[in-house]
Every structure is written in structure tokens, then in C-alpha cells.
């Protein structure tokens, strides 16, 4: 039954998820016991909200809005997740995604907010495209820094990433606090930028806003899924992807095989930077999202760091990241619904962190599954080998049967 390694991987992930939910529900039971205002009916409501997430509202319009927002929030998470995943495949730990995300935001908003295309949406889309490209260039350049430090000076990428994160955060606040024309004074807000919605340079929605009205949803999710699939193909089917993975698996062997491992390290970080930057660009180019630049220098964006669990949960598989990011955001959406039952939203984060914790030794689950199988196979084989002459075809059959039984 469990011959397929992908199937086994999925089974291990499901086990992690079940463990996470068990812990989350235990915490909810604990809170119900401690807090006198909560009763058993609250607990059942809470569990319902936890599993149904954005679908748990009886009102169809609310469901659509919640669902649309959830999908919109998945978009940047997939990108930062991809960023971490691609770097990880090359053996680099990209903890610098927050900085790259911010540099992408900076580059894109500097273009999209400075050019007013409110009257001409066609031109607006061109400006939007330019904004994305500039954002990607900024992020890629930012990602190149740890790559160059690693490749040419042999300096650990983690320390460079942490430093560049904070440099980027300060640059963003610094630059925008001097761009007085971009600050949203008309709406009486300080330290907020204007939105792209009024300028016509927002992300095209491809009609998705008609399907899920009232939410932030835009075409970003489609773009992001296409990018993820492209990187899946690049990493698994092309020579370039193979070289990156070879560098990650064994740097010295890759060098010995004639690959330019320095070039690959820099390229991998450039790509990672560009991917994280797309996340920042798409997030803030949405028609309804405004950037609060005033506090960025003190707080790195959570999307950057959350890319790490999204990538790790997906075992750094680009297509897997789509699912892991969606799942993590689904849990968060459930968390905000939990408040309706009297619980705090952080229970959702408890669940996702426990899931990641178990994901750390999902390989152990896999190993246990395989070991058990090997032992059984060994038994079957010795049992079959007792009669001396057995044709190969018949040998396969009982083995299969036996596996079915044990499964």
C-alpha cells in the first residue's frame, strides 16, 4: 500500500497535522477548565471553528470575504516559502527573506506610487509590471549580498542575512519618511503610505474579486502558483536545477564534477531574493493594502520569517510550498474565527508551531514506516525461499498480499 514515497511523505505530514490539532484542542480544554466564563458548548463551538476556518460562518457573503482574504494572505507566504525552499536546496539557510521582502516592497512602491495612472488603467498595468520588475531587481540584489559573502569570502550566510534584514528595514523607513508626497495625509493617517487602489497601478484581479467579493483577493495568487510550478520544473527537470541541488547535497563533489559552486551559491541567493521580493511587491501592490512604514525599522515583517516553516513543512518542494502555505494560512484564519467562541486567536499559532515541531522528525516516522516494511519483506522473502524453485512473478504476488494485510 505504501510503496509510493510521495504517499509516505503525505502520510507523515498528516500525522504531524493530527498531532498539532490534538495539542491545540488540549490547550483549548485547559483554557476551558481555567476560565470560568467558558463552558463545554464553547469548546465544541471552538473546535468547529478550528476545523471549518473561513467556512464556519452561516452567512455566504462573510464566507466569501473570509475565503478571499485568506487566499490573498497566502500569496506572499508562498513566495517567501519558495525563497527559503530554493536556497535550502542549494544548502543555504535563507533567514534573510524579511529583508528581501522589504526591498521588493520598496522598489515596487517607489514606482507604483509615483506614477498616477488613475485615468488610464492600461498604462497602469504596464506601470504595475514595471513595479514588479523593479521590486524583483531590488530583492535579487539584496539576496546577492549574502550569496557573494558566502561564495567569495566563505562567511556564514545566516549572519549576513540577519544583518541585511535590519539594514533593509531601516532603509525602508528612512526612504519613505522622506517621500512626503506618498504619505497618506488626506485620510488623516501618519506613517502610512497611500494605496495603489486610487492610482490605477494595482495588481490585476483577473475577475477573482467578482467570485469572492468584499475581500482583498487579486490575481497575485495565480501568478504565484505559476511561479511555483515553474520552479518545480526548473528544480526537478533542468540541468540548472540539478546543479543547484548538487551544490546543496555536497559542495565538494559538485566542484569536483566541474560545476561552478560559487556561481551557483550566488545565483541561488539571487533567485531566493527575487522570489521573496515578489511576495513583498504583490502584497503591497494590492489595491486595498497600505504600508505602515513608520514602525518597519523596529519590526521585521512576519511574512519573511513565516516563509521558513512554509518551506520546511513542504520539505522544500516548490509545489508543496503552495499547499503548506495554504494550510498555515487556513489555520490562522481559523484562529481569528476562534475568538467568536471566546478563545484567543493564538491557539492557531500553537497548532502550527506544534505541527512544525513534529515535522522536524517526520523523517523518523518515514524511517519507521520503511524499516517495518523491510522487516516484513525479509520475512516474506525467507518464507518464499523455502521451496527452492520459485518463479519471479509468483514471488511478487504474496508479498503484495502480505503488505495489504498489514496495512
Amino acid at each position, binding site marked *: 500500500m505504501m510503496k509510493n514515497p510521495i504517499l509516505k511523505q503525505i502520510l507523515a505530514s498528516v500525522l504531524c497535522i493530527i498531532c498539532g490539532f490534538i495539542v491545540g484542542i488540549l490547550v483549548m480544554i485547559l483554557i476551558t477548565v481555567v476560565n470560568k466564563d467558558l463552558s463545554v458548548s464553547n469548546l465544541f463551538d471552538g473546535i468547529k471553528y478550528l476545523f471549518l476556518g473561513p467556512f464556519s460562518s452561516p452567512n455566504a457573503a462573510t464566507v466569501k470575504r473570509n475565503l478571499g482574504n485568506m487566499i490573498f494572505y497566502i500569496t506572499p507566504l508562498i513566495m517567501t516559502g519558495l525563497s527559503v525552499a530554493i536556497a535550502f536546496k542549494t544548502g543555504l539557510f535563507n533567514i534573510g527573506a524579511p529583508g528581501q521582502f522589504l526591498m521588493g516592497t520598496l522598489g515596487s512602491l517607489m514606482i507604483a506610487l509615483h506614477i498616477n495612472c488613475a485615468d488610464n488603467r492600461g498604462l497602469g498595468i504596464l506601470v504595475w509590471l514595471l513595479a514588479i520588475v523593479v521590486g524583483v531587481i531590488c530583492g535579487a540584489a539584496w539576496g546577492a549580498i549574502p550569496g557573494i*559573502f558566502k561564495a567569495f569570502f566563505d562567511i556564514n550566510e*545566516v549572519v549576513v542575512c*540577519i544583518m541585511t534584514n535590519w539594514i533593509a528595514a531601516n532603509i525602508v523607513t528612512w526612504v519613505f519618511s522622506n517621500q512626503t508626497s506618498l504619505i497618506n495625509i488626506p485620510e488623516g493617517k501618519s506613517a502610512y503610505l497611500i494605496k495603489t487602489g486610487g492610482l490605477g497601478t494595482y495588481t490585476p484581479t483577473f475577475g477573482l474579486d467578482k467570485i469572492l467579493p468584499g475581500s482583498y483577493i487579486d490575481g497575485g495568487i495565480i501568478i504565484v502558483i505559476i511561479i511555483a510550478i515553474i520552479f518545480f520544473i526548473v528544480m526537478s527537470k533542468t540541468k540548472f536545477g540539478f546543479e543547484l541541488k548538487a551544490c546543496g547535497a555536497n559542495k565538494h563533489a559538485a566542484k569536483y564534477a566541474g560545476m561552478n559552486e560559487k556561481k551557483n551559491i550566488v545565483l541561488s541567493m539571487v533567485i531566493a531574493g527575487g522570489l521573496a521580493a515578489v511576495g513583498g511587491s504583490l502584497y503591497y501592490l494590492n489595491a486595498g493594502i497600505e504600508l505602515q512604514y513608520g514602525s518597519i525599522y523596529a519590526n521585521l515583517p512576519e511574512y519573511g520569517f513565516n516563509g521558513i516553516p512554509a518551506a520546511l513543512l513542504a520539505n522544500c518542494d516548490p509545489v508543496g510550498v503552495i499547499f503548506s502555505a495554504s494550510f498555515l494560512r487556513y489555520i490562522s484564519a481559523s484562529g481569528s474565527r476562534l475568538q467568536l467562541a471566546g478563545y484567543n486567536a493564538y491557539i492557531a499559532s500553537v497548532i502550527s*508551531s506544534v505541527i512544525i515541531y513534529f515535522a522536524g522528525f517526520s523523517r523518523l516516522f518515514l524511517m519507521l514506516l520503511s524499516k517495518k516494511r523491510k522487516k516484513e519483506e525479509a520475512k516474506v522473502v525467507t518464507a518464499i525461499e523455502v521451496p527452492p524453485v520459485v518463479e519471479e512473478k509468483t514471488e511478487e504476488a504474496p508479498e503484495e498480499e502480505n503488505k495489504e494485510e498489514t496495512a
Partner: protein
Amino acid sequence: MENLILILQKTIIYAIPLLIVALGGVFAERSGVINLALEGEMIFGAFMGAIFVYLLQKGGVWLDKPQLTFICALAVGAGSGALYSLLLSFSAVKLKSDQTISGTALNMLAPTIVNTFGLVFFLQEKINMPYTFTGYAIINSNLPGFLRILFDKAYLSTFVVILVFALLSIWLYKSKVGTHLRACGEHPQAADSVGINVAKMRYLGTTISGALAGLGGYAYIATVANGTAEATIGGMGFLALAIMIFGNWNPIGIVIGALMFGFLKCIGAVSSSVPFLANIGLPPYFYNIVPYVVVLVVLVLFRKKSGCPKAEGIPYEKGQR
């Protein structure tokens, strides 16, 4: 002169948590476990220390002895950091997990614990400790010159950390157990072959690491963060990790790194009040960036052979070569 002493006093206060948490990182990584969870351990230790202070205050115990409370809260922070790190060592040593993933999970878990329990028991996501518990231990404004850097407007945590740092650093390099611990990070197979229990050493290293991170976490919130324990610690754990790498996994390097970083950071903090710097008219963001840029430049200029423990992050399998 007065300004310089002020900056140096602040430098010490800022560098102290960084110093001890980075040493915590060294203990884990020298034993062969990547401790990415320093940030989480700091948050958890700080929160537990703050709860301890809150409970003492509520029970009316030691109200007139804030410094005794401070020392005990540091110990509570260290103890809870050590307990929390067992989650990491258990998965890393016993279950042979991917240590990056486990560390990330613990970094995610600590803030949610603070938020959840803060909301359930204190109805807010943070604990504010009263000022009396976070005040200076020693004020000696009459001391001559540079003695004031350490002994005027000083916190007890400064002396505790300096003492612990020195003792543990010597122990790591000069004692038998310390040498065994380092061997497990370099070549666990060789260590095992001469009868060292690799798993035990890795548990020890990670637990000390967690204790130091918890201690540093409480020292940070009680001094730099003015007594507020919340779900974030301003990236100090990751910064300590960076300082550890900057210091080449070596206590002396860490001292240099933490002091240098703290000094540059504090120049930024006082830039608006020092006339000489205020006249240049650069925004605070410039001074914020300086320490990070300097770290990068120093890394390039003084790069040497990496002191990174060779077996870090690799689960030890008996019989594997």
C-alpha cells in the same frame, strides 16, 4: 568625556544579554546541536522570570528586597530556558530530527505561549514589572573616571553575567567534561570510540545553552526593555546567533563582537542628545544601520578559517562513518 562614559555604560547594559546568549549558542553548537531556538528560549525564560516577579509581588514576598528578587528571577529565567531547550535536545538527540526545523518550531512556539497564557491569566499579551524591580543595583556617581562604566548605574545582571560567562568559558576549554563536549561537536564518532557518551554531552550542551538564553532573556527585559515581558524580544536571539558566528564560535570573539556591536548601537541611541553627533544632522536610521554594516565589513576584513564545529547539525548515528 561625560558623554563617552554614558555611552560606555549603555554599551555594557546592551552587550550583556547578547554576550551570554551568544555563549549559550556556543555551548549547543560545540556539542553538535544547532540552536536556532535561542530567540524562543530568551522569550520563554524572560516571560517565566517576569511571572515569578509578578507572583512574588502579589504574595507580598521580598517587597523590600528588589535585588534579591532580581537574582532569583534571573535563576528562574535560566531554569525555564533550560527546561524549554529540552524540547530541542529531545527531538535533536533522541529523535534525530532536523535541528533547523525544531529550532524554528520552538521560535514560533514561545511567542504563542506568552500570548496565550498572557491573555488567559493576565488579560493582556505582556507583563509589566514595576520599576522598583528593574532599577539600578549600584549608583556611584562619585567614582573616578572609567570605574564608573562598570560600577555606576549598573545592574546586578551585569556582574552575574560576567561571572557566569568567565566561569563557563574556562570550564568549556579547560575541564575534562568541557573538552569531551567540544569533541562531540567536532567528531562524535571519535568521541564515542573513546567512551564519551555523545547523547549525554549533546543534552548537556543544549541544556546549558537554553539556561544561558533564558538568563539573557530575563536580563534583557529587566534592563534594556524596561521590565516589559512580551511575545517578542526584538530579534536579540538571532542577533546573538550572528554575534556567535561573528566571534567564530569562541568566547573571546564573542566578547569583542558583543561589545563592538553594543557600542555602535548605543552611539545611535544617544545620537540626538550628543551635540557633536546631532550637528551632523543624519537621521536615526543611519545610526541604526551602522552597527550591522560594520559587522559585515569586519567579517570580510578579518575573515579567517571558520571555527564552525564540523559535526554541528548532524544527528549522531552509532556505527556511521
